[in-house]
């Protein structure tokens, strides 16, 4: 199968402290891959390294078989934990900036806004949006280039129950479309429903990895397994 992401012996150190310590994993086309782990386990560091925000101390990362991550990222859709947008600009203006950077035609904006239900609010300044709306705007931005590989970091953080339900639906729809998804989240029940594969991180190392059905064998739930293994 086509490998969409290959992480090989990735390490990131801050002085003497090791945030990620020689982790390796790969994601194949069509997989929904969950990165699980307690706070400080290295999930965000791993994602930030893939996204070129952090420079790894050692190790290699390939996206779509290429180590030129900047070019590869233009074919990906990314949603970060903290919503990132220009608060004083409208939703449309924010998406125009993303289009300019990605090299995507502005005509993609309406479809992306329609998909996340923000069409009516598209001309309002983003600072007037609720957290859920801001997160949906970020999803719209991630979908502008119709990406086949999506990277989501804690997409439901800070959302109310309605926002979580909306985000879950969006994630499930994207997974059903056969897109490859890498997702880091604390919501284990959601991950159990969505993911085909998971890796569990603890103190910067992968302590278990594989198909979720294998990992869950003999377990009551992903949550109970996770609590046992990370305790």
């Amino acid at each position: 199968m086509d490998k969409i992401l290959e992480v090989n012996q990735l390490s990131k150190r801050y002085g003497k402290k090791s945030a990620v310590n020689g982790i390796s994993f790969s994601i194949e086309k069509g997989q929904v891959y969950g990165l699980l782990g307690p706070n400080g386990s290295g999930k965000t560091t791993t994602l930030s390294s893939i996204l070129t925000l952090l420079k790894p101390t050692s190790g290699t990362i390939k996206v779509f078989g290429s180590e030129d991550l900047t070019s590869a990222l233009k074919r990906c859709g990314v949603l970060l934990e903290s919503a990132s947008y220009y608060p004083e600009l409208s939703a449309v203006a924010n998406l125009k900036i993303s289009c300019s950077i990605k090299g995507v035609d502005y005509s993609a904006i309406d479809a992306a806004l329609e998909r996340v239900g923000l069409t009516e609010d598209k001309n309002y300044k983003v600072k007037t949006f609720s957290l859920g709306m801001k997160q949906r705007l970020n999803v719209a931005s991630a979908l502008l280039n119709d990406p086949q590989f999506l990277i989501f970091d804690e997409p439901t953080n800070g959302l109310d129950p309605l926002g979580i339900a909306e985000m879950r639906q969006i994630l499930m729809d994207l997974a059903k479309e056969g897109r490859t998804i890498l997702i880091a989240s604390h919501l284990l029940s959601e991950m159990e429903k969505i993911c085909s594969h998971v890796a569990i991180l603890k103190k910067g190392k992968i302590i278990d990895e594989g198909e979720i059905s294998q990992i869950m064998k003999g377990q009551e739930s992903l949550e109970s397994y996770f609590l046992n293994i990370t305790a």
Partner: protein
Amino acid sequence: MKLNRILTSELLKLPRMGNYILLGIFLLLNLAISFLFFYEFSSSDQSQSLEDLGRQVLTSQTSLSSLLIAIFTIMSIGKEYKDGTLRKNIIDGYTRDDFFVGKLLILFLCVCFAFLLGIICLFIGALSLGQLSEFSEIITPPFLINFFVELFYTVLFAMFLIYLIRKSTMSIVMYFLWGFIESISVGIYAAIYQFNDDVDGEPINLANYLPKSSIDSVLNTAATVEWSAVLVTSIYIVLMLYLPYYLFTKRDIRS
């Protein structure tokens, strides 16, 4: 094509309330300077020389415009850090070089815009007070070069501070503090020289050798300045172009 896309995205980021307020302040104060100096000159019965008028206008306009353009530079980059949009730009596909070039390009355009607006404000003041001939006398090539180069160097210095500190407020405080420390240093040096009988010869102009003051000092004393001061200033210009780039491209972008 790539530069076009970078410039388009940078232009899309400009319409912010803070920028409109800065533009309004810039226009008001530049017009005030223009009216004030031309009015003073017209009512002084020609006791003031045109050379003095030109120097006063240049000093006031350059100081004010530099301060505002420094604040604009720091705010425009600082907000990208604060709002997380720098991370967003990078994950959308900007390289760090793209982001740096985009900011440099838009800030260069803003310097050109501020330069033109400053001259237009002077023209409006002169026109309103019937001093067009005086206006054409003081707007000499050295005046224009001095004004433009100082604005551009201020942008580079402000970029250095914001890429070093990565926080707008701290960078603006540092901008003022740096200027204050340099002024104090020049003052202390002059005082030591004046009261020390053991020191012979002409004192050097310390301002020529300090990062923030050197460009201003060298431009204002261009006729008499030493070659070593010009060399030091040139080195500062290269450093102020390279250091922000180095700081930005070599460091992690954390949330």
